[in-house]
């Protein structure tokens, strides 16, 4: 979920989201949103419930949902682990 939130309420929101048992990851950053949360759900109802719970938090301006419809493909072979820490 891409969450846009008032800056002064961001920490409270992150704390709230991270407490949810189905949240894989909740991170602050910059860009298309202020907080990005990866959440696992079993059904559309669960998704709606989670989204509404976040939307009801103080300071939340927008919650956009991206649904992963396939298994996530991890590609750790793309990491540069040669030990060269200089620019790519």
């Amino acid at each position, binding site marked *: 979920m*891409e969450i846009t939130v008032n800056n002064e309420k961001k920490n409270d929101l992150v704390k709230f989201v*991270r407490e949810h*048992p*189905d*949240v*894989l*990851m*909740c*991170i*602050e*950053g*910059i*860009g*298309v*949103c202020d907080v*990005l949360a990866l959440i*696992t759900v079993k059904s559309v109802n669960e998704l709606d419930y989670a989204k509404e719970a976040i939307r009801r938090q103080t300071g939340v301006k927008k919650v*956009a*949902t*991206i*649904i*992963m*419809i*396939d*298994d*996530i*493909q*991890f*590609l*750790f072979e*793309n*990491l*540069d*682990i*040669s*030990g*060269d*820490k*200089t*620019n*790519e």
Partner: protein
Amino acid sequence: MHELINDAQIPFRRIALKLGISPETVRKRYEKMKTEGIINQSMISVNLEKIGYRGLTFLMIASKDIAETIIYLKKMRNVICVAKTTGDSDILVIAVSRDIAGLLSLVEGAKMLPNVDRVEIFLSTLDAPFPASIITPGMAFLLRKSDAKSVLDQV
């Protein structure tokens, strides 16, 4: 299983002490979980910061040809995760970068791929905590623990 999720290298004897059962019982339960496919594999948790990575980038990509774009993305350096999505975007990419130059290279590279219409980004640092108990095996790679013993530290 909870103990093994937190530390796959924990000795059976220590689990036994914690649970008040014998190490042999722990071993039998472990073998049973492996046989039944409950435990797939044990993985290492690498602290990416220790090998020079600093940034975590999420790319939300809209593409006219999702399958082809995914093929290209999977070959891109430092792209560690690709998933097909539905909603405003078609593909979610997770990538890591060492610096601004690496980040720019990643974003520009994604924008220049054939059939890509739009690339939105979300940037974060690699120090976000991940809850170990519910993390997927793949995500475990990103797990940042202050006491993580990265086998790549010496590389």
